[in-house]
C-alpha cells in the first residue's frame, strides 16, 4: 500500500495548455479509430444541449456541412461557451474545444495554440470538409473572445 506521501499528486488541469494535454493523454489511451470516434461521440452526447431558442441563425457557424451553433457569455473576467450541433460527431468535436477554452480569460483564449487538435489523431479520419469546420469553429470561438477582451 502506498503511504499518503507516496501518492502521485493529481492536480486538476487549470490552464488551456494543461487541459489540452489532458485531452491528448485521454485520446492516447485508445488504439484504433473506432474508440477515438466513440470517445468524441460520447463527449458530444455529454455536452449540455443548447436551449432551442438560442439556436438562431446569428449563432450558426457558417461554412459547416452540419449545423453548429455557438453562444458565449462573459462573467468575472471569464468566457463561458455553449454550443450544439445536429451532428453528434461535430458536437463532440466542438465539445473538445469547449472543454479547453471554457472558463478562461479572453486574453488566454486569444493566445491559445489550437494546433493541439492536429495531435489528436482525429483529423486524419476526417473528410476535408469536416477538418475545415474545425478550423472555423476554433476561429469563431476566438472571435467571441475578442468581443469580450476590452470589457
Amino acid at each position: 500500500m502506498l503511504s499518503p506521501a507516496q501518492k502521485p499528486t493529481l492536480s486538476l488541469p487549470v490552464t488551456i495548455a494543461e487541459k489540452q494535454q489532458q485531452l491528448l493523454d485521454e485520446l492516447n489511451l485508445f488504439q484504433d479509430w473506432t474508440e477515438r470516434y466513440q470517445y468524441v461521440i460520447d463527449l458530444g452526447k455529454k455536452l449540455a444541449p443548447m436551449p432551442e431558442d438560442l439556436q438562431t441563425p446569428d449563432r450558426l457557424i457558417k461554412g459547416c456541412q452540419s449545423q453548429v451553433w455557438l453562444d458565449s457569455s462573459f462573467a468575472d473576467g471569464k468566457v463561458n461557451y455553449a454550443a450544439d450541433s445536429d451532428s453528434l460527431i461535430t458536437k463532440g468535436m466542438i465539445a473538445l474545444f469547449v472543454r479547453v477554452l471554457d472558463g478562461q480569460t479572453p486574453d488566454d483564449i486569444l493566445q491559445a495554440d489550437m494546433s493541439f487538435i492536429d495531435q489528436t489523431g482525429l483529423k486524419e479520419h476526417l473528410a476535408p470538409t469536416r477538418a475545415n469546420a474545425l478550423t472555423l469553429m476554433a476561429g469563431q470561438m476566438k472571435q467571441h473572445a475578442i468581443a469580450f477582451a476590452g470589457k
Partner: protein
Amino acid sequence: MPFDPHSIRDQFPILASEVNGQPLVYLDNAATVQKPRVVLETSLAYYEETNANIHRGTHHLSQKATAAHEAARDRIAHHLNAASPDEIIFTSGTTDGINLVANILTGSISAEDEILISALEHHSNIVPWQMLAQRTGATLRVIPVLEDGTLDFGAFQDLLSPKTKLLAITQVSNAFGTPVPVKDYISAAHAVGSLVLVDAAQSVAHKVIDVQDLDADFLVFSGHKIYAPTGIGILYGKTSSLENLPPWRGGGEMIKEVTYESSTYNELPFRYEAGTPNIEGGIALAKAMDWLSDLGLPSVAAHEQLLIETAAASLADVEGLRFYGPSHRQGSLSFNIAGIHHYDLGTLIDQMGVAVRTGHHCCQPLMNRLGTTGTVRASFAAYNTMEEVEKLVNAVKKAAMMLA
C-alpha cells in the same frame, strides 16, 4: 445464368484500392461510376495513335480522328436506337445538355407559357429552367411528389394545359432511385403540344434506352455515369424538334460560312458542337456503351436489382431506419436512421471502407418536401457484389450502435 460481378472486377484497377487499411467498397456509383480498363485504354490509345483535330484537316491523322469520332456517334446512336446519328450531339455532360436546350428554347417561350418540371429533379434539371423562366417571363410549375417518393401522375395531368411548352423530367431519381414511367408523361405532354426533355443521367447505366420508343424530343446523359470518362455527355435531339431551333454557342465547327456581317450555320448535329469537341471522350463513351451492351445490360440491371433488394431487406431491421422512395428502386437506395445525422453515419461508414454519399444529393427542394436535410445513399454498379452489400449492412449497423 445470372450475371457474376466477380468476373469483371479485375477489369477495374481502382477497385483494388484500400481505404483505412480495408478493401474499398465503392457504393457511390450514382455520383460517378468507375471505368473498366478497356475504356481507359481507349482514351490512352486515342492520344497515342490518333490525336488530331477533326473535320478540318486533310492529313491522314485528322481523317483518322474524324472517322473515329463519327464512328463513335454512330455507335451511340445505335445504342439509343436513334433514327439518325445526326440526332446525337456531343456535350460535356447532362448539365451541359440541359443548358443547351434551355437556351435554344428562349425564343420559343413567351410570358404566358409554362415550363413543367418534377419534384424529383436534380438541381441541374431545375436551375436552367428557372433561368429560362426568368428570361422569358414564363412560369415554372412543379409536379408534386407523394409521400412514398413517387410522382403524382394525377396532379401532373391537372397541370398540363396548352400553355405547357416544355416538360423536363428525370427517368430515375438520383436521390431515391425512384423510376419514373416517362413514356406515359411524354405522351400526355405531347397531347397538349409540349416538348419533352428526359434526364437519363441515372437511368442510362441501368436500363436499355430506346429514344424512338420513348418518343422524347430531347434526352440527356453524362458519360461518366455509364463507365466512360468525365467531361463527355450526349444530347439526343429528335430531328423534327431540333431542326428549326437556333444555335447556342458560336464558334468553329458550328458554321457554314462566316463574314464580319453575318454567318450561316452548319447542319445538325454540328450546329450545336461549337469548338473542338472532347474527341477522346466521345470515342471512349462509345466504347463504354459497347462494353456494357456486350456484358448484357438487362442481366447487369437484374444483378443490381438483387443487390438493392438484399441491402434493403437486411437494413430493414435496423431500429429507426427509414427508406426513401418506393419499394421498387433503380440504382440507388436512400435512407436515414431516426435521431442520427446522415453526415455522421456517412463519416463512420467511410471509416469502415464503404463509400456512400450523404447529403441533399443536389435535390434541396425535394429534401425540404420530405422534411429532411439529406439522406445516406448507397448506389450500385455492375461490379458490386453480395459480399459488399453485407459489408455495407454491417457498417451501417456498427455506425448506428456507435451513434445511438
